[in-house]
């Protein structure tokens, strides 16, 4: 650890804090349908879209219709993406003549991008054409992010409105998210990324000569792709000289901007945001981490603004940021302490396996916590190669249902479910009627909050257990022992919570992981969404109960601490056994091997 690392981290959070208030207020104006500084330009476009598409902007929806429109829209998108992937070989903008995806990989990738997960069981540079990247993945990066924002806004309206069954119009919320928020910011940031070295072109891949040709021994394979062995059973190798290599190209910056802003996280290249063409400098690293957190953090203040209680927004944001800063600190400390098994070989004591020189430990710690505290899942360092405690940080952030600060929209509506549970439990303990922002918390709200919070936990434990029972699934582990368990646990945590990052050693492109993963991602995405919308519908129908002396204040420090505790206890109770068998056992093993 060094002072520069801390300084970079502190400056980052100060800038983030300065940005959330104006941005949160801007979001509130957008979703109340008020004028903003972009209105002169965008209102005509918006009206044109509504007219062409047959959207009645003044017609609001009860929660069931809102949810149905949302699921229908996402399904249409998922089917279209599935078709694009299956037909890739026959579609244009494919200078490398890449072939179509096999069906189960196509299904997994389609569900993955539709659900804002962006789990990738393929490598971008060798599998996805420019058509797929643009018309498939970039489009879904926008749409899934806008879907998340819409759900958050509808949930906020549940608290802000009284005695109505209407929670907004999905098509209008979706359109405004894209036109007023996601697209302008992406258009602003993408050229900035290019100025630092992120590529943006439609050229075929380039041949690059090597200054010093590389000679290496390549394992010989027969026509069937099997290794050729000599009489003694040793692999036969042949000497190969590489004089030039192929460098992939593509429209990267346009996808990079929305990939981070929309907390999608699907890399254009296999190495994701560790690739020098996706994240070329320490400065772009901070910009990308900033984009990941911007909307999720700002929505808390939008919540405060729209419900008329800005202190409540700050209280929620404070809980999120406190946990996030703690996570960054632990990861930074653990990775700086390094791997004693490597240090004893006479190596400087810091773990740089799977990290880029330009980011160092501080830049990697910040990014890995930001990407897993949200539902982003882009990585600038390989989480699989972190020290056991360092790697437990991103894993734990995902297992806590990604509420630190959470994905665009998902973070807020999941956090509101935790708040409802915290209010309810506190109410039981002190014998008061649970109320939150003037709304009584009753059975329906509790049910929906439990569904929102517990879905991912149930999915993670169920599918991890299933995988451990399935020999083919266990065979996908890249590292032996406790670390292998962490890989499988991480995979299902990542997919069920729609994160998409990985302990990437796991060979996940198999029938088992593609199918179980698709199911985990789908249920993990839409069960909490429908539950949140149902809760919004129920809350909007209630009358406003003005706070009295007996009301528990939810915007003060004691409640913020209580809320943090509830989040940690729910997470710990669900996952402590699994975590102790994975990272914790490995940590003890590592120290013991000194």
């Amino acid at each position: 650890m060094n002072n520069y690392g801390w300084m970079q981290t502190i400056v980052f959070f100060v800038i983030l804090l300065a940005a959330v208030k104006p941005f949160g207020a801007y979001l509130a104006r957008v979703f109340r349908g008020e004028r903003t500084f972009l209105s002169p330009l965008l209102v005509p476009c918006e009206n044109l879209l509504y007219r062409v598409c047959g959207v009645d902007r003044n017609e609001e929806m009860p929660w069931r219709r809102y949810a149905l429109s949302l699921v229908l829209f996402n399904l249409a998108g998922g089917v279209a993406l599935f078709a694009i992937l299956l037909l890739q070989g026959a579609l244009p903008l494919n200078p490398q003549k890449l072939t179509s995806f096999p069906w189960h990989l196509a299904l997994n990738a389609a569900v993955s991008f539709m659900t804002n997960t962006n789990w990738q069981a393929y490598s971008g540079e060798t599998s996805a054409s420019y058509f797929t990247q643009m018309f498939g993945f970039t489009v879904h990066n926008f749409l899934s992010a806008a879907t998340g924002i819409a759900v958050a806004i509808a949930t906020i309206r549940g608290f802000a409105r009284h005695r109505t069954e209407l929670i907004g119009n999905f098509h209008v919320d979706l359109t405004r998210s894209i036109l007023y928020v996601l697209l302008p910011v992406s258009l602003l940031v993408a050229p900035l990324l290019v100025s630092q070295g992120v590529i943006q072109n439609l050229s075929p891949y380039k041949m690059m000569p090597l200054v010093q040709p590389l000679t290496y021994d390549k394992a010989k394979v027969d026509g069937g792709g099997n290794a050729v062995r000599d009489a003694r059973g040793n692999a036969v190798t042949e000497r190969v000289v590489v004089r030039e290599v192929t460098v992939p190209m593509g429209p990267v910056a346009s996808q990079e901007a929305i990939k981070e802003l929309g907390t999608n996280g699907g890399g254009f290249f296999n190495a994701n945001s560790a690739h020098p063409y996706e994240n070329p400098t320490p400065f772009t690293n901070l910009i990308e981490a900033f984009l990941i957190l911007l909307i999720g953090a700002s929505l808390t203040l939008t919540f405060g603004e729209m419900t008329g209680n800005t202190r409540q927004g700050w209280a929620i944001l404070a809980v999120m940021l406190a946990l996030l800063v703690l996570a960054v600190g632990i990861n930074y400390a653990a990775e700086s302490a390094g791997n004693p098994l490597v240090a004893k070989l006479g190596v400087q004591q810091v773990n740089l396996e799977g990290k880029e020189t330009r980011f160092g430990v501080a830049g990697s710690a910040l990014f890995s916590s930001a990407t897993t505290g949200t539902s982003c899942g882009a990585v600038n360092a390989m989480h699989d190669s972190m020290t056991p405690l360092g790697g437990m940080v991103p894993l734990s952030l995902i297992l806590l249902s990604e509420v630190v600060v959470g994905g665009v929209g998902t973070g807020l509506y999941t956090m509101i479910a935790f708040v409802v549970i915290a209010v309810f439990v506190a109410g039981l303990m002190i014998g008061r009627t649970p109320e939150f922002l003037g709304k009584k918390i009753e059975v329906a709200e509790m049910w929906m909050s439990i569904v929102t919070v517990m879905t991912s936990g149930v999915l993670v434990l169920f599918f991890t257990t299933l995988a451990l029972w399935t020999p083919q699934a266990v065979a996908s582990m890249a590292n032996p022992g406790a670390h292998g368990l962490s890989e499988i646990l991480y995979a299902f945590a990542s997919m069920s919570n729609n994160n998409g990052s990985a302990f990437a050693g796991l060979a996940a492109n198999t029938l088992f992981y593609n199918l179980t993963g698709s199911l985990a991602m789908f249920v993990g995405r839409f069960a909490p969404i429908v539950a949140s919308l149902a809760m919004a519908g129920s809350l909007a129908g209630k009358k406003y109960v003005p706070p009295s002396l007996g009301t528990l204040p939810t915007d003060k420090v004691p409640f913020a601490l209580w809320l943090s505790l509830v989040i940690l206890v729910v997470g710990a109770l669900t996952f402590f056994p699994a975590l102790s068998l994975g990272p914790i056992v490995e940590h003890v093993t590592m120290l013991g091997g000194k």
Partner: protein
Amino acid sequence: MKDMRPTLMLFIAFTLLLGGAYPLVVTGMAQLAFPSQANGSFIADAGGVSVGSRLIGQPFTGAKYFWPRPSATDGFPYNPMASGGSNAGPTNPDYLKTVAQRVRALRESGVTRTLPAELVQASASGLDPEISPQGAAIQAERVARARGMKAVDLERLIAKHTQGRQLGFIGEPRVNVLELNLALDTMK
């Protein structure tokens, strides 16, 4: 049902806007304003021939060149078509054996000091173009010997190619291995 038409029409409209117009507009802006970066930051030699990209590392192995970090890309090291890390866990016995081999190779090249971690641990992308200034410094003696040059001159060259933290505090100081080696070749 009446929500069918808006659903499908909005999807088509957004696909055209976000999948077509948006990336094309960004491509246009990028190609006009930053053509070199947008096309991969390639470096040309004096004759205008491309000699590599300053962002994509190359697998230098000769004693006459500064070595980059180990790379775990599939096929061969620094394979740009297979970006990625080793994904080896910290207690994996095979991984620890690999690191020990790399340590041995550096010791055999004459380094006695504590080794900078990045020289024995593979990067996340497998294409990391840079090493730390210390990582370059401990190689100066070997390169000088192989080229019949003075180590002091090489240390000066390293200092000249060291990039500081951005804005003075962001990221880590680093040396671009390709640029350093190209500069070496012009010195002889």
